[in-house]
């Protein structure tokens, strides 16, 4: 309760309001401080008072053989995950709780979610209301069932104050390709910072996977907790609705040149050019949906990764169970795809060490993996990634980004 009050003071809230659910990120091991904290809670006999899902942990509990790190870290990481179960949390261990039918709050519902991509998705795509909660606060809100009445819990704070308008020079094939969306997210994070932006000029009715990609990248490059995609997200049926009838503080034009530059910055490897040999392909950050798992199978088209190339896809354990049921998981494994659950390949030491760069379709993975696990990274679309895995070297879709 003291933490919730501290949060309320930091947000200058006048009162606390009840929530209907929570998503807790504190179950990821960041050192002994994270264990010390939860043991204090467990020892007092605390329990969550609302349905609470858990974010990724340090390791894949269902496939422990994938762990390549030291035994002590694995043991402490597992202990921490178990402690959060003991507090009454549901062991979902996914950064994409919004893909679970039982964990999707409705429009206008007040919740306390942590994990930057989940926060953005919750606010923007579900229209449920959460502030940017972080470790420790998330579980404090879940136990008390209360949040400060401040920030994005309030209607007025959800108004777009800046408009990002896509230029006419963006090629239609790019608007219809998954590769655009993480790159657009990186630009959104840079341009918006902590402000709420309405993106105008996108095709209406964008898929949840594309909206997920925008949000995850935007929350990596900026402190974005919410955005509106006009014609796609529930509080932005029109631009005027996203602006709540008021004028924006600024309207910014986003053109092809800026998108290309952002795409190029996601590649750290000296040579991301076609033909560059790669050692790893990592997909599923945030956790892959069933549609994305099916897309991997489609792009493999019966082929396997080239010898020496590891193709790993991260997803949630509940989605894996569904993929097992329809035979998809078995078929993917038979084609040499490794499926990782409960964690992510830039958090846990699971990838086979390789001197060659890694390729990813995730703006977030491209952003954090070089610092976290010390790899050079090449960004590409899902199709480019899977086809590159099969060739063993970078393949580029020539039509995607227009002629430079």
């Amino acid at each position, binding site marked *: 309760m003291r933490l919730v009050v501290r*949060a309320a003071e930091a947000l200058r809230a006048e009162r606390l309001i009840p929530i209907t659910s929570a998503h807790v990120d504190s179950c990821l091991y960041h050192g002994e401080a994270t264990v010390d904290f939860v043991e204090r809670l467990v020892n007092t006999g605390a329990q969550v008072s609302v349905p609470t899902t858990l974010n990724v942990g340090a390791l894949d509990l269902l496939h422990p053989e994938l762990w390549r790190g030291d035994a002590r870290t694995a043991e402490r990481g597992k202990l921490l995950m178990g402690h959060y179960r003991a507090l009454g949390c549901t062991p979902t261990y996914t950064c994409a709780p919004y893909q679970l039918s039982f964990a999707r709050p409705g429009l206008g519902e007040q919740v306390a979610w942590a994990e930057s991509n989940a926060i953005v998705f919750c606010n923007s795509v579900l229209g449920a209301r959460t502030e940017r909660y972080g*470790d420790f606060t998330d579980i404090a809100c879940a136990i008390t069932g209360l949040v400060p009445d401040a920030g994005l819990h309030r209607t007025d704070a959800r108004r777009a104050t800046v408009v990002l308008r896509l230029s006419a020079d963006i090629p239609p094939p790019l608007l219809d390709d998954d590769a655009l969306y993480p790159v657009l997210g990186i630009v959104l994070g840079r341009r918006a910072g902590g402000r709420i932006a309405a993106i105008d000029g996108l095709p209406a009715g964008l898929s949840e996977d594309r909206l997920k990609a925008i949000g995850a990248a935007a*929350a990596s490059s900026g402190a974005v907790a919410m955005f509106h995609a006009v014609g796609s997200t529930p509080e932005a049926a029109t631009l005027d609705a996203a602006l709540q009838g008021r004028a924006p503080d600024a309207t910014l034009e986003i053109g092809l040149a800026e998108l290309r530059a952002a795409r190029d910055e996601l590649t750290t490897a000296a040579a991301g050019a076609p033909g560059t040999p790669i050692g790893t392909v990592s997909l599923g950050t945030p956790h892959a949906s069933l549609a994305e798992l099916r897309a991997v199978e489609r792009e493999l088209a019966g082929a396997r990764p080239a010898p020496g190339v590891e193709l790993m896809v991260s997803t949630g354990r509940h989605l894996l169970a569904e993929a097992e049921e329809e035979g998809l998981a078995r078929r993917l494994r038979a084609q040499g795809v490794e499926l990782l659950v409960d964690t992510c390949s830039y958090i846990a030491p699971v990838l086979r060490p390789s001197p060659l760069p890694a390729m990813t379709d995730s703006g977030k993975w491209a952003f954090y993996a070089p610092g976290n696990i010390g790899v050079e990274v090449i960004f590409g679309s899902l199709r480019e990634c899977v086809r590159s895995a099969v060739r063993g070297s970078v393949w580029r879709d020539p039509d995607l980004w227009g002629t430079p």
Partner: protein
Amino acid sequence: MLAPGSANAVAIVLREPLSLWGGMDPASGQVIDARHPQRGENLAGRIVVMPGARGSSSSSSVLAEAVRAGYAPAGILLAEPDLILAVGAAVAEELYGVRVPIVVVAPDELALVADGQAVAIHEDGEITLG
């Protein structure tokens, strides 16, 4: 003041926003974000001046762990309130009795702090520059 305490140390002014998670190694205080212009510099024992925040909600844990390990910043000056850092500092104080004061300073005043300058954060939230 987002987190109470006092500190006397040399400032490091971040030229770009930095997420502590994925950005600072709590076991050394080093900046590890591959894209950050100050990669390789050390934040331990410094007054970290952050004109903007960004990124992961795990930064609370990273700050608390850096305190436990003895490599936390001596204090943090921000242009805007940041709940995630405030909570990290609160938990670190509760668990380890170590305070990392965090103060929100108006952007024009924050711009007066130079890299390498001696800075004092006082108990009442006042900042004096050496």
